[in-house]
């Protein structure tokens, strides 16, 4: 028998049951967590897409402490300079700016590699690049986060960029920042969003 416990905003707690063999926790009629014979699972939560058309950095803040996996999504993102885009994870609302072991390689008719200790680097080093793809971060244990990414651009020239790295934060992750290695270039195209899940 399944019990559904629904925290309704109009009727308070509603408890219903069926025969599916699962326990579902709902908020205002929407299932947030299910426990069944295979384990406990919840929804992948989507952030709000933001236009990456201004600013020297874009912060996604207030990530819940239960997050174990984050997907950063780039849709036609560009900057106005040659400073390489960086993703920094943060704790206590402040991005961590050191301690990364991150490598990013661009593959085209040739190949080149860039390393970074200041963030997870994505080797697009020209203002003309307009890149799309994802960067996925997962929690290994404690405050250790590893990430890997494939992104590409067909502006300037056709380039695929493969990146990966690791960082140990000083506390629980609660923010993600997209910026650039130099920190002063401005984003001027596209949009960015994140998914997070526990």
């Amino acid at each position: 028998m399944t019990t559904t416990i629904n925290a309704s905003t109009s009727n308070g707690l509603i408890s219903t049951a069926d025969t599916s063999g699962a326990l579902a926790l709902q908020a205002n009629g929407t299932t947030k967590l299910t426990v069944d014979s295979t384990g406990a699972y919840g929804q992948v939560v989507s952030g709000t897409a933001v236009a990456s058309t201004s600013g020297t950095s874009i912060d996604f803040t207030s990530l819940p402490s239960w997050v174990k996996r984050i997907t950063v999504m780039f849709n036609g993102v560009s900057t106005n300079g040659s400073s390489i885009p960086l993703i920094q994870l943060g704790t206590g609302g402040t991005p961590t700016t050191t301690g990364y072991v991150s490598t990013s390689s661009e593959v085209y008719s040739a190949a080149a590699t860039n390393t970074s200790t200041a963030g997870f680097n994505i080797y697009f080093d020209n203002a003309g690049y307009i890149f799309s793809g994802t960067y996925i971060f997962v929690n290994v244990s404690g405050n250790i986060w590893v990430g890997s990414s494939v992104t590409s651009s067909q502006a300037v020239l056709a380039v695929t960029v493969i990146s990966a790295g690791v960082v140990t934060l000083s506390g629980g992750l609660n923010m993600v920042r997209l910026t650039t290695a130099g920190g002063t270039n401005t984003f001027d195209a596209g949009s960015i969003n994140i998914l997070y899940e526990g």
Partner: protein
Amino acid sequence: MQKIEVNVLTGEQKIVDLTAEEVAQAQATNAAWEAEQAQRQSTPTFEQTIQSQADTITALIARISALENR
């Protein structure tokens, strides 16, 4: 300079002016990054070093061949 902040719980988005301290930090970071790039460009990459050595070997082989054909 400005940054965009997105609160993932509320969906609130706002554009925030960087503080003077944050601007100074960004400018310092940029200066360090540009210096690193300049240093990187003046140092031959591994691939460039290998290519240079290959060019030297090719030139030596051509020289030896020319001497042998005298």
